[in-house]
């Protein structure tokens, strides 16, 4: 098992919970994407919280289901909320290409959430980078209601 603080492999994936208020909806209220603000750090956060999908050790579909169940156990997950999925490599490439930044995606399990991981060294106010993460890196969207 991977040690706490170790880098996740580039070909692995992470999942982030996005509440309803930070999902882009079209005029008919269909969810069509994530707002950049879904990837902004709060004042008390040093890194962006995600779940490491391959931690669950099964096929992709099962990993996604188990990760969602893990999120639901850890904190309140609204019925209309969703999850974004990105590969570690894509996150690093996006940060490098958009902002010249070298970020780390590390394993940081907690008692409540053994799959918890973090994206470190993200800037707080770079709206262009946040938009690139929202639209290009976390390009896969899974609705909570679909799991």
């Amino acid at each position: 098992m991977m040690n706490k603080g170790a880098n996740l492999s580039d070909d692995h994936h992470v999942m982030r919970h996005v509440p309803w208020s930070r999902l882009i909806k079209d005029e008919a209220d269909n969810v069509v994407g994530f707002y950049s603000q879904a990837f902004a750090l709060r004042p008390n956060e040093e890194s962006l919280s995600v779940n490491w999908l391959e931690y669950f050790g099964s096929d992709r579909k099962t990993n996604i289901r188990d990760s969602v169940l893990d999120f639901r156990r850890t904190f309140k997950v609204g019925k209309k909320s969703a999850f974004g999925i990105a590969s570690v490599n894509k996150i690093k490439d996006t940060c490098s290409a958009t902002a010249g930044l070298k970020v780390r995606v590390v394993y940081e399990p907690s008692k409540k959430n053994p799959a918890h991981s973090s994206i470190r060294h993200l800037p707080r106010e770079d709206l262009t980078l946040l938009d690139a993460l929202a639209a290009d890196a976390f390009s896969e969207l899974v609705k909570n209601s679909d799991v």
Partner: protein
Amino acid sequence: MSDKPHPVPALAKALTSGGSLVFKLPEVPPYEKARTIGEHILLKLPASSAPYRSLLKSAMTDDSLTISAWSASYSPMFSEETKFIERRISELRNPASPASLFALAEKSLEERLFDATASVKILTAQIAMHLDREWRNKLFAQLDSLHDLEEWDPDDEPLQTGSFATFLKAIVQIKPQRRPGLGLSHNGYLVASWMVGKDRLTIEFLKNDRVRWVMARYTGDDVERFAGQTSVSRLIDGLAPYGPGYWFSK
């Protein structure tokens, strides 16, 4: 301190009116709640405090007198309970006092969301003439949806009135034919998005008429991003080089 009688101290302006003492103190607007609580204080004063009962009655029937002013002048004469009631009067009189902010923090999440929604809807009503009914109804539905208690992240801040005021100013200026999707940042700033296929324009409305925006235009696998921060009055100018009609026109 007990409510035993004290000699009434001399004031700069005092006159006798129908056997009662009346003191002229600085003018402030009348405040009905303060008057009501003043009546409560009257009930609390013992009969032996006749001079002060008279003083208080006069204060409550004369608009030029203020309860807070006389209470400050005669503070040593009142019991702790009376002083407590007087403090409540002051809290009612001063809408943005620290005490009222503390009370705000004690509100339940449901109350805070309700209040935030009500505040911005009232604000919207002030510019109702600039929004057609259909859009206003849609906007209200979006605001209700953003503050949906079932979906609410307890670490988020409800929509800030200042942010929403900036949004309304922007909408009145831009007059977009296409209505935006709405979202909320964790600190309560409204976010609006216009999408054309995969292309998207996102504007975050800050307080004090400030906005920041980012747009992404895709050409095949290539993407160009532009971002800016400006005042709401300069927003159209800031977006002009990037063809605002692409986002706002039908």
